[in-house]
């Protein structure tokens, strides 16, 4: 048994009161504990942004890397030590802007890790510029005359890129979020959760109340193994006004990247002895 408090760290968290990041962190702690994963056997990899500071506020191994690159780092960690539970986290700018290619490639690779995007639809740490999920027309510090671009749909990208677990959570529904994070970590393959959340300081438009009025859990009869249904559900909300489905959109069991590597059948790379001897290979050069 692991108690969620084991994941607590004494720290001075610098998030604003009311920030959605708190909910994700609590969900993550509770989920890891409920799955019986010990803090020293788990790694949280992040990029740059307010949410990417999470490794500093949690008692687990952390890698707080550079902007947009949480997934490549997490990929290296997981392939080197497949016995670790690896979670990558970051914001919408980190994952859908500068790091979008890594996100799509990670979906297609189906490496066994969890990716949580704290999607507040604004750049918070850099004090309020438009992000890839900011609505068209939104006035931000970088778009004083209104954002000229349409927002992207991360769930559509994830499903069409080959992710095997795709969900949307909401920071205002901790019970559901916890369940989603737990399922994502337990999932064998690349699990992705887009977590809608307010930015109480820089996103005045999409407040917690705004979301509360619109979110709606996906019907229990949704067949999440059906890709077409998952895609049409993902198309249901485009970032503007309207009902926002939350829950698991898509989930299938596919072989993971590591399943195709016989190198890992005898254990994690990090446990292997460094006793390579290329003498026989050298003979080929004679």
């Amino acid at each position: 048994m692991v108690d969620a408090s084991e994941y607590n760290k004494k720290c001075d968290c610098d998030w604003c009161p009311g920030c959605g990041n708190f909910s994700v962190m609590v969900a993550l702690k509770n989920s890891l504990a409920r799955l019986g994963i010990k803090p020293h056997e788990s790694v949280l990899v992040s990029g740059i942004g307010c949410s990417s500071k999470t490794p500093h506020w949690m008692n687990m191994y952390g890698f707080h890397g550079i902007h947009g690159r949480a997934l490549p780092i997490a990929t290296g960690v997981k392939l080197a030590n497949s016995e670790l539970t690896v979670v990558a986290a970051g914001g919408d700018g980190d994952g859908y802007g500068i790091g979008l290619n890594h996100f799509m490639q990670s979906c297609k690779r189906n490496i066994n890790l969890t990716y949580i995007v704290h999607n507040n639809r604004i750049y918070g740490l850099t004090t309020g510029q438009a992000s890839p999920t900011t609505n068209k027309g939104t006035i931000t510090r970088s778009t004083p005359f209104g954002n000229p671009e349409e927002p992207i749909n991360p769930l559509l990208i994830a499903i069409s890129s080959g992710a095997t677990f795709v969900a949307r959570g909401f920071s205002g529904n901790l019970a559901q979020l916890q369940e989603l994070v737990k399922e994502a970590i337990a999932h064998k393959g690349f699990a992705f959760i887009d977590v809608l959340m307010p930015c109480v300081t820089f996103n005045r438009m999409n407040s917690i109340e705004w979301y509360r009025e619109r979110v709606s859990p996906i019907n229990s009869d949704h067949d999440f193994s059906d890709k077409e249904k998952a895609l049409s559900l993902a198309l249901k909300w485009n970032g503007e006004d309207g009902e926002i489905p939350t829950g698991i959109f898509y989930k299938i069991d596919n072989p993971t990247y590591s399943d195709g590597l016989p190198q890992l059948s005898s254990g994690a790379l990090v446990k292997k002895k460094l006793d390579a001897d290329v003498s026989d290979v050298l003979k080929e050069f004679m």
Partner: protein
Amino acid sequence: MTNLNWLIGGPAGAGIKVTGLILSKTFSRLGLNVFGYTEYPSLARGGHNNFNVHVSKNKKSIAKKLDVLIALDKNTIELHKDKMSSSGIIIYDPAKIENIEFPNIQTLPLPLKEVATECGSALAQNTVALGATMALIGIELDTLNSVIENVFSKKAKIVDVNISAAKKGYELVKEKNISLNCLTDELKEKIEPKLLISGNEAISLGAIQAGCKFYAAYPMTPASSILHFMAGKAREFDFIVKQTEDEIAAINATIGASYAGVRAMTATSGGGFCLMTEGLGLAAESETPIVIVNAMRPGPSTGMPTWTDQSDLRFVSHASQGEFLSVVIAPCDMKDCFYETMNAFNIAENYQIPVIVLTDKLLSESYGTVDELDVNRIGIDRGVIESTTSSYGGKRYLFTDTGVSPRIIPGAVDGIHVATGNEHDEYGEIDASSENRVKMQDKRYRKLESLQKIIPLPKVYGSESGEVGIICWGSTKLSALDAQEKLEKLGYNVGVVCFKYILPFPDSEDVRKILKRFNKLIMVEANYTGQFLGMFRENLLIDVDDKLLKYDGRPIYPEEIVEKVKSVLSGGENNG
């Protein structure tokens, strides 16, 4: 003649490289020195490809004058005829190229394609030319045949076709009673066979032998053959090769794998290194040991993808924002590629810093002979690693006298910490206070004290003192050594001072002592601005008397160095 300089040229897709390799291996098995250098444009078919095989008893590099030219098209003759030596012979197929005659060059028309077709496949026409080459020099076919058997081992029929093609080529020349008087004495001696290996193969083998368990890369000439070689050996040696979506992912995955506790490497060329620079800084700030191979080609931008030069030295030495320790090693030959890659892992892990192995197209993609590669010469030394339990309670960045902190591997009990690109305290928690910043930067730079002690001095070849010291670094050593030998025969007293470890710069006082033994110093490097010369001046506070800078994408030929030295000694114009 004491050497054979042979070249086969034709359009891409004509089997030029495999033919050149077969000849190279034939001579390396006969115990001679071989340098196989290939030129090709960046395209899949057409253009002009060539493979140059320089054979001798002790030469190290390429040579200008050609003794044998196998021309598979007319273009090849146009491009190379001016390089023919006085006794040189051009072999061509009159069915493909109309009969040619030159006043001062011997030509040997042979029905290559017709003979190959008779033997079973027109594709074996190059092998007819190989058989002809053997006859010109007077070598029996057994060695060539054994190489053919190995190269085509998977297809018995192709072996038969090629062996009979070689025989036909051999007989055609014997019938005509033509011969080339070269390597006669050299071939009489019974010498042990040598290994024939490319720089990139040697780097890959060095990495595998060093226990590299994770290799991530994005394809880029001239580094791609490392990816190919590593991928082919991953299952046999139990490591993972990941072709990533770009070089950014490659270096970050490498960092992730190293953080998780395995030896990890990536390789690229200048353009890819550009994308890696932010990751390079992350490795430095998070003190994650990684090895990066950068194989240079002429830039800027796409530049000349399939050609060579040494113009990334300043870039890789100063890449990424801020200030941090890194090591730049420029292997000077195939042996170095093997041993220095192994050293790179040891240095990276002992000092928890990025180590850059800086090679170039000439070294990475050329084939050279080595007597042996000793797998036991360089052991594995991983430095301070805590993989099961941490005795420092997660102080991954513990302040120590040496500046090196215990490297705690995720999974270790009591070792929880954050690795980060932010300035941080001993636990990896963000700390931008003035006091911490100074302490942490001092800690990281404290490693320099012991690191500096393991940086070897440049090696001197030829005369230890004398009229001229030829200064070079990396692959230029090969041509410099051949030039030195030539100059010595001409009665000049010349030494070669070759730098392999460039960053941190070797102890300046000791280096100056070495350089003082020469009356004149000449810098030789393959770039426009004299990049190493700049670092040389900056670190040593002395200058050279002259310099030879080449930046046309072609290797520096020994002949060019010889001319430079002669002109400097005869008081020629100083363009330095």
